[in-house]
């Protein structure tokens, strides 16, 4: 009890210095937590993707389409329950910064394999009836304020021209994990245009999304599909939807690794600050430590004193950081992140790492002062002036 009291009194004796150190710790740990969350958010889309749906694309690269007649051939393969077309439209609404994904799909077969998207029956009927109709996800609708009945102009970059769509339905996600940030419209609307203007580009699919009746057969079905088209004009590459979406994340892997690496530098920075605080504290109190030793306390006691003080300051900083990180993450997400990320949740592992980092900083910062003060000769210590 006496020991704890002594540590506590010591820790907050130089109030300004301790407060600044704690503040620095909080800032650094929160920054670390946010960066880790950014890294996690990058993978969130892929985690929501299904491992039981397949995506078939041209094996050369996504830039090349697949002929539409592949659809019937794929449907005939054993184990395939449904096939839908999906074309990346890549248009620009308002400006480049207000980005969202648009897909031309055959809506009835597409949404039949996405039970996680919920439509209102009347809106669904309106969507099917309107050739220029579009379905907008709830998160996307909230982000840019799309309402049913809106006319949305989009400038095509891959498919030239100024396109206009009518928002006919806004679909909800089945649960919180479902990402509803997409914009879907009728494949036929796009294809009719292509037939007139660029007949060679018509009747093509960007990718086929395939529903497999038994999740255990996914790998077999994928192999069968690729074997079927191996020697045709457009060879295919079939992978699970999850692998497909992870391949996009993999493209910016380097950047994610850099962010992750940099997040540890901030811990190093704050370690330097905390170590400095402890070094100065110990130096100023050298004569006190000598006094303690003269009174009969061993070098271990002095070392424990410094260690406990350092860890206590770090613990206070760590506790505050862990308490405020989720709130700050949410604020950051509301203010800036919604156009970039679908989800921005602080993972429990991130909070645990923050706690661990705080302890490590506290413990390591005490190291040099501990050794120095424990070994100081009583005479030298008493003679020492701050």
């Amino acid at each position, binding site marked *: 009890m006496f020991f704890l009291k002594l540590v506590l009194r010591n820790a907050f004796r130089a109030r300004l210095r301790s407060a600044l150190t704690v503040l620095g710790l909080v*800032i*650094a740990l929160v920054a670390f937590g946010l960066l880790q969350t950014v890294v996690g958010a990058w993978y969130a889309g892929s985690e929501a993707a299904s491992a039981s749906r397949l995506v078939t694309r041209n094996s050369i690269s996504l830039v090349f389409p697949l002929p539409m007649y592949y659809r019937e051939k794929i449907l005939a393969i054993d184990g395939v329950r449904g096939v839908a077309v999906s074309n990346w439209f890549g248009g620009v609404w308002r400006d480049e910064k207000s980005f969202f994904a648009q897909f031309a799909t055959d809506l009835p077969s597409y949404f039949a394999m996405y039970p996680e998207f919920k439509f209102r029956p009347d809106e669904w009927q309106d969507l099917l009836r309107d050739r220029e109709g579009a379905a907008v996800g709830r998160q996307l609708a909230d982000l840019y304020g799309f309402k049913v009945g809106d006319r949305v102009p989009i400038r095509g970059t*891959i498919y030239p021209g100024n396109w206009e769509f009518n928002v006919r339905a806004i679909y909800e996600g089945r649960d919180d994990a479902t990402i509803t940030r997409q914009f879907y419209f009728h494949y036929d609307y796009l294809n009719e245009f292509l037939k007139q203007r660029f007949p060679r580009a018509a009747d093509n699919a960007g990718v086929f999304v395939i529903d497999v009746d038994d999740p255990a057969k996914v790998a077999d079905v994928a192999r069968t599909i690729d074997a079927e088209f191996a020697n045709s004009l457009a060879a295919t590459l079939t992978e699970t939807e999850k692998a497909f979406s992870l391949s996009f994340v993999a493209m910016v892997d380097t*950047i994610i690794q850099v962010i992750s690496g940099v997040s540890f530098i901030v811990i190093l920075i704050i370690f*330097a600050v905390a170590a400095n605080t402890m070094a100065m504290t110990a130096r100023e109190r050298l004569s006190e430590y000598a006094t303690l030793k003269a009174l009969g306390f061993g070098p271990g006691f002095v070392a424990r004193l410094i260690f406990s003080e350092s860890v206590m300051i770090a613990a206070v900083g760590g506790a505050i950081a862990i308490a405020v990180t989720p709130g700050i993450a949410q604020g950051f997400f509301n203010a800036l992140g919604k156009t970039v990320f679908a989800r921005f949740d602080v993972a429990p592992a991130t909070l645990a790492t923050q706690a661990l980092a705080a302890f490590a900083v506290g413990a390591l910062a005490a190291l040099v002062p501990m050794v120095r003060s424990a070994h100081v000769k009583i005479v030298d210590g008493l003679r020492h002036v701050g």
Partner: protein
Amino acid sequence: MRIPFSYIARNLWVRRLTTVLTAGGMALVVFVFAAVMMLDAGLKATLVATGSDDNVLFIRKGAETEVQSGVARDQAALIESLPQIARDERGAARVSKEVVVLNSLAKIDSGKRSNVPIRGVTAMGLALRPHVKIVQGRTFRPGSSEIVVGASVARQFVGVELGQSLAFAQRQWTVVGVFDAGRTAFDSEIWGDAEQLAQAFRRFGGYSSVIAQLTSYDAFDALLEGLANEPRLTVEVKRERQFYEDQSRALSGFISYLGITLSIIFSLGAVIGAAITMYSSVATRTGEIGTLRALGFRRRSILTAFLLESLLLALVGGLAGLFAATFLQAFTISTTNFTSFSELAFSFALTPKIILNSVAFALVMGLIGGFLPAIKASRMKIVDALRAD
């Protein structure tokens, strides 16, 4: 009267551990700051150097990249006849009609696939890029299924060694050479014969882009005017340099935005470190401050002395961070460029502007961190300060 600089510098030397730790924190911040700016500069340098001054590039209106674009054969022929396009000694237009597609290849280190641009070029296309040199093997024979790969592609991807062949578009393409494009975006590409690639990829409709040399740098305005008066042409023209600079915009914006945000947040930690050090520096020398004031040094001299101490501390940190960052120049980063949707390799590039900015950034940290402690020191009353010890 000014307080001697050696007094200021020695204060830092006496408390070496503290100085090293505080300057070390700042060095880390400056390192991050400089690294990100160097990455951005390297990206820009790579893309800007890809274009040549006299070359222009025609793409379909509204297309952002060559891969998205399509220029019909009749349009390409019209372009060739424009008066601002240079001609060689035999009167042929210095124009290269090219096909650019993306092919996903597996990377050596991760096994993951990434998009590599495959460019079909003509003999004239090679002449228009004199900075591209074959460093291994030979160039592809026109009319054959041969390809040459850029130096970065050769380093990073599986199956593109000399003599190996890639299977795509129902053909085997043999790698017969490796070219060095002098650290430009072409290093991240694979080149082959334009007509062969167009056939294999069944691009009968036309080309992706048309690259042309102007009669002179200043002919561009006349070219724009001519284009506006030619309703049959539905293409857009950009200077080649401008085109590649535009390709860097999204990724460069992302990198610098991220970098500046991180540097500012990280710098808070280092500024707090500097403030702690300086406060303690003031506290332990209260008696000295009293003595200096009693000797006749003015408040302003005390203020300046402590500010200089903090700035010197920051300068040491800043230079250390910058020094560490210079070693990054040996590294090359490779990532997907958002705009072109393809892999692009680029290095960290240190520019004089980055050096200046990094030092300025460090000094600002020192100034902010040392400001309040210096004010506190200058406001001390002589009697109180002398009595403090």
